[in-house]
């Protein structure tokens, strides 16, 4: 079998397809494959149609393929809806107790579970065992994954797995690959949470909103282990104002939400800028406008996030395209917030947040906790005028009096409307933004993939990074991924654009917001857009690019 497999597993909400998908992902992780899991689910708790699409490959492949190699159906609806995507010689595995179907591997899952005295959730074990056998994966590997992932009733699960494994035949063999070592499976939200933890996060405040909620849940469930405290206040407005309070009192704090919740936070974003309070805001986009589609992705918040904040607001805007980015940027984001005493927005999207990716665990070693610039001496002034615009920090409860002010203020924090002082303060914050711009130059702020001398360049947004990289390989293009969006790494980007004749953006929104943003820097890009809530398939882009007759 080939080294690049797509496995789709579907059923009703509540049947456990997500867990089954996770088990499959872990099975292939154990084999050393790169893994990418796309989660497609509806905003309902029982019924409907959910599926996980697991792509496993010998190299990093973070995009969806239209054609799937294996279809695992918990219910009839999955076959009805998804069979058309199964390739001709693909493998169909289904629950024969619920589906009448001639072709494929039917397992009487319910019957087996009943006979063994199991519970309905063990259907996951039935399917993963069937898949392992069909692909010739050894029982020992299957056993070790089940033991790692299933805590309750493991003996019975293994018994069921064994029975299924022994009754079926091997259809094909998984391909040999150069196995990855030290690879972790993380969702973008988990990675982001861990990145923040590695920067010394002490408080995380959030109000539930898909697709950011799982950051809160993940941290809340691991409070002791990760030495962090989480709190869910009455609203997103309370969320950010509390976080600003805790940061003012010296604790590294972050908040997270989706577009709607972020909208409620924006007044306080400006407060953080004016009071120079460090705060990391994770904004995980979902389809809008308004309530939109909670469980589907659109990257329509870019304009809003870049422009958010009344007044001349200094801020960083970062974006992640996969879990590895989210890990690195969750860490860097919190550190930057404290280094520059400024709000930092980390922009994710539903697919980056909730999909699962292979992450090289070596990256953890590069993550660090930075110490902020603290004040030592006498006569503390919170807003001391400095060359780089950064005034040393002190916290209430120390020997110094600390006054933070949402009004325009003098160096000691007292309210003012004096022309000279106002000008000085505006200029101090402007110098801080210039320091931030220099920081971006130092950091680079972009990643480049593909052919160096390519004449075509693609700027992907968020989750489209994976598909862009894959496309670039096929077409010999170049991918420029600006992981810092503000201050924009203009110099670096323009260097990369030397010799490039045609520029595209890949965006999941209806108006081409990234292309519009690039225009501001004199970069003319043709936006390639998809706005159905689902990320690009590599196949549809391949067709599109062929049609454009773009060649290098």
């Amino acid at each position, binding site marked *: 079998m080939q080294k690049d497999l797509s496995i789709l597993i579907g059923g009703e909400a509540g049947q456990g397809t997500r867990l089954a998908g996770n088990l499959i992902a872990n099975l292939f992780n154990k084999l050393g494959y790169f893994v990418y899991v796309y989660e497609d689910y509806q905003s309902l708790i029982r019924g409907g149609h959910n599926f996980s699409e697991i792509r496993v490959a010998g190299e990093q492949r973070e995009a969806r393929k239209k054609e799937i190699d294996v279809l695992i159906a918990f219910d009839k609806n999955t076959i009805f809806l998804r069979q058309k995507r199964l390739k001709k010689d693909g493998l169909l595995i289904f629950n024969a107790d619920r589906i009448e179907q001639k072709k494929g591997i039917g397992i009487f899952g319910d019957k087996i579970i009943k006979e063994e005295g199991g519970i309905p959730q063990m259907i996951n074990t039935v399917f993963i065992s069937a898949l392992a056998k069909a692909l010739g994966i050894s029982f020992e590997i299957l056993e070790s994954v089940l033991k790692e992932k299933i805590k309750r009733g493991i003996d019975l699960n293994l018994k069921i797995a064994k029975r299924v494994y022994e009754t079926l035949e091997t259809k094909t063999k998984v391909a040999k690959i150069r196995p990855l070592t030290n690879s972790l499976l993380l969702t973008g939200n988990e990675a982001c949470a861990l990145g923040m933890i590695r920067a010394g996060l*002490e*408080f995380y*405040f959030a109000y539930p909103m898909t697709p950011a909620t799982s950051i809160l849940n993940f941290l809340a469930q691991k409070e*002791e282990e990760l030495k962090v*405290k989480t*709190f869910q*206040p*009455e*609203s997103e*407005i*309370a969320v950010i*104002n*509390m*976080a*600003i*309070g*805790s*940061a*003012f*009192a*010296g*604790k590294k*704090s972050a908040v997270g939400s989706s577009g709607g919740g972020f909208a409620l936070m924006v*007044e*306080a974003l400006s*407060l953080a800028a004016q*009071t120079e309070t460090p705060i990391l805001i994770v904004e995980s986009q979902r389809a809008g406008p308004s309530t939109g589609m909670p469980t589907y992705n659109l990257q329509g918040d870019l304009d809003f996030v870049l422009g958010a904040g009344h007044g001349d607001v200094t801020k960083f805007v970062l974006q992640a395209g996969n879990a590895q980015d989210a890990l690195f940027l969750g860490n860097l984001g919190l550190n930057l917030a404290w280094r520059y005493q400024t709000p930092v927005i980390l922009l994710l999207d539903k697919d980056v947040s909730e999909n699962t990716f292979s992450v090289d665990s070596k990256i953890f070693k590069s993550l660090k906790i930075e110490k902020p610039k603290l004040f030592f001496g006498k006569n503390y002034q919170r807003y001391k005028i400095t060359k780089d615009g950064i005034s040393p920090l002190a*916290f*209430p*409860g*120390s*020997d110094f*009096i*600390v*006054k*933070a*002010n*949402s*009004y325009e*203020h003098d160096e000691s*924090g*007292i*309210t003012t409307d004096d022309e000279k002082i106002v000008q000085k303060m505006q200029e101090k914050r402007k110098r801080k933004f210039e320091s931030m711009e220099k920081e971006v130059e130092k950091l680079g702020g972009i990643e480049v993939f593909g052919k160096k001398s390519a004449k075509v360049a693609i700027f992907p947004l968020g989750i489209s990074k994976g598909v862009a990289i894959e496309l670039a390989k096929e077409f010999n293009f170049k991918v420029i991924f600006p992981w810092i969006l503000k201050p924009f790494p203009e110099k670096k980007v323009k260097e990369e654009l030397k010799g490039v004749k045609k520029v595209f953006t890949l965006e999941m929104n209806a108006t081409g917001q990234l292309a519009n943003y690039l225009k501001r820097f004199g970069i003319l890009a043709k936006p390639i857009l998809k706005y159905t809530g689902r990320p690009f398939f590599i196949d549809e882009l391949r067709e599109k690019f062929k049609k454009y007759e773009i060649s290098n």
Partner: protein
Amino acid sequence: MKYQTDAKITWCPGCSNFLILRAFQDALFELEKEGQNPKEIVFLTGIGCHGKIFDYLNLNSFYALHGRSIATAQGIKLANPKLKVICFVGDGDCYNEGIEHLIFAAKRNSDIKVFVHNNRNFALTVSQFTAVSPKGFKGSSTPKGSVEEPFNPLELVFSAGATFVARTFTGNFEHLKKMIKEAILHEGFAFLEILQPCITFFDLTNFFKERVYTLENQDFESKEKAQEKIREWDYKNDGKIPIGIFYKIKKPTFEQEFFKPSQS
């Protein structure tokens, strides 16, 4: 320690806010003598005439957003539970814009103190009606008189779970100082409404003087007694206006519960 800054005071001459500024400093002077380290105090203000107190006190402080200081205050208290956290807020500030935070802080019994400068109008924006202005209030946005009735904030906060509910009046300085001190000393959420007439736009000085009386022999722990007295003046009727502590009980604070090691 000198509590006042050199900042120029910009309240209207004769404003009752001067009395709050003075009473707070006097209360703090006594508290410091009793062992309170003033450097472990943080106060916050919202936006409105009350908020100007930020500039006049040389203490740790945060000039927060309109209506949001109570949320910011709880963040500070969580981050450093050793700090005494006090919010000066206005009636428009915390009964209109930020009422959710007031209700939830009371519900949680967060260990913060809330002093409401209630002048029954938005004064700094040249007088508009607030949640506690009387029906028919003629402000700049309601020239024919507002059509809404006020609510009784004490009843709201009491129902939400406040463990300290009190009212005072700037016209009784000793009482004002005493209530400020009592509120600061209370462990848990302390709500103190300060009737603070706006001498420029809505001068209720005489109205209050004629009606205010001091609660005596109040059973602090009786819900029934508290409710009865809280309802005596509902911001609508023309009855007597009790001042003093209506309700005061001991209960674990939000922060104590929050940091309690898990049982499992």
